[in-house]
């Protein structure tokens, strides 16, 4: 499969994503620049972490209006799988491709530590081969990951199974002590109604080899590979 990893000015996890996809998983990877306007020939898109445009205005706000994001929007609407990691998640929120918004972490601290996540929905391209309730260990590194959405929107998202990951303890229990940033309803990752666009604050690309302490992050990439190969889809094909 051919992945596109988008680099914005200030992205700093793009090469980690390229490394995992190319060297760990043996996939083809194209570097996509924020000014590119075409994603032709790509099967899946990753928006990596970092501090695009220095987080000016709001995290992800300026990147969300970059030329490449029109193409990402079209790719997503056509059913193509898109994953936003950390700052990439913030970009997808600001672009309106995912619901909700980010606030500064409760307590204002930049949190950089391994956390546990509970898989809440396997009805997405990036979690299809995981198990509901499965607990993953992935690292976080962010100052603005306090997920927020107004109550009516949260209710709709829960009904539509759009909450994909929640912060939890090692046994999968939800607790405020296991919530590193104050996110509403412990939300760590969400998806669009179709399930092809997923965003999460933790970094799967930093936990894709056991030598790094956890290889759980690989599962997300392996899921999308499985979905893509099963469906033999083109980027324009539907996922479900």
């Amino acid at each position, binding site marked *: 499969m051919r992945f596109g990893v988008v680099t914005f000015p200030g992205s700093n996890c793009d090469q980690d994503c390229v490394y995992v996809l190319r060297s760990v998983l043996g996939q083809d990877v194209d570097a996509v620049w924020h000014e590119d306007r075409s994603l032709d020939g790509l099967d899946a898109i990753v928006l990596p972490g970092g501090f695009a445009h220095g987080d000016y*205005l*709001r995290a992800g*706000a300026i990147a969300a*209006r970059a030329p490449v994001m029109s193409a990402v929007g079209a790719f997503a609407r056509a059913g193509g799988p898109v994953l936003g990691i950390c700052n990439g998640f913030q970009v997808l929120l*600001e672009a309106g491709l995912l619901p*909700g*918004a980010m*606030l*500064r*972490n*409760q*307590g*204002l601290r930049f949190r950089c530590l391994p956390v546990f996540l509970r898989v809440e929905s396997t009805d997405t391209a990036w979690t299809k081969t995981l198990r509901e309730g499965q607990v993953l260990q992935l690292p976080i590194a962010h100052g603005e990951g*306090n997920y*927020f*959405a*107004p109550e*009516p929107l949260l209710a709709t998202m829960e009904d539509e199974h759009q909450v994909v990951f929640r912060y939890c303890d090692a046994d999968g229990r939800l607790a405020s002590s296991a919530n590193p940033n*104050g996110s509403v309803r412990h939300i760590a990752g969400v998806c669009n109604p179709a399930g092809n666009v997923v965003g999460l604050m933790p970094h799967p690309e930093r936990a894709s080899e056991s030598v790094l302490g956890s290889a759980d992050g690989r599962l997300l990439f392996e899921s999308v590979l499985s979905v893509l190969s099963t469906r033999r889809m083109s980027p324009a094909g539907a996922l479900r």
Partner: protein
Amino acid sequence: MTTIRITITLKPGVLDAQGQAVLQGLRTLGDDQVSAVRVGRYIELTVPDGIKGTDLDQMCERFLANPLLEEWRIDDPRRTPLSIGERTG
């Protein structure tokens, strides 16, 4: 040309962690008069005199503010009172 002043703040009820930290700082300095602090952003736009108010509203709603979290106040010397924006829902 006209200078438009825009003030963006978090909606009431949305946790303002920065405001709380500033309040704590004031307390540390011995102030006991301030009961709440909200921290926002201030933006100045230089625009042609004839710019439409609705264009300014759109800039706020589509880009300068995030309507999910924030509200904004447009201080346009040609318009009184201030235009206060918030998208509901």
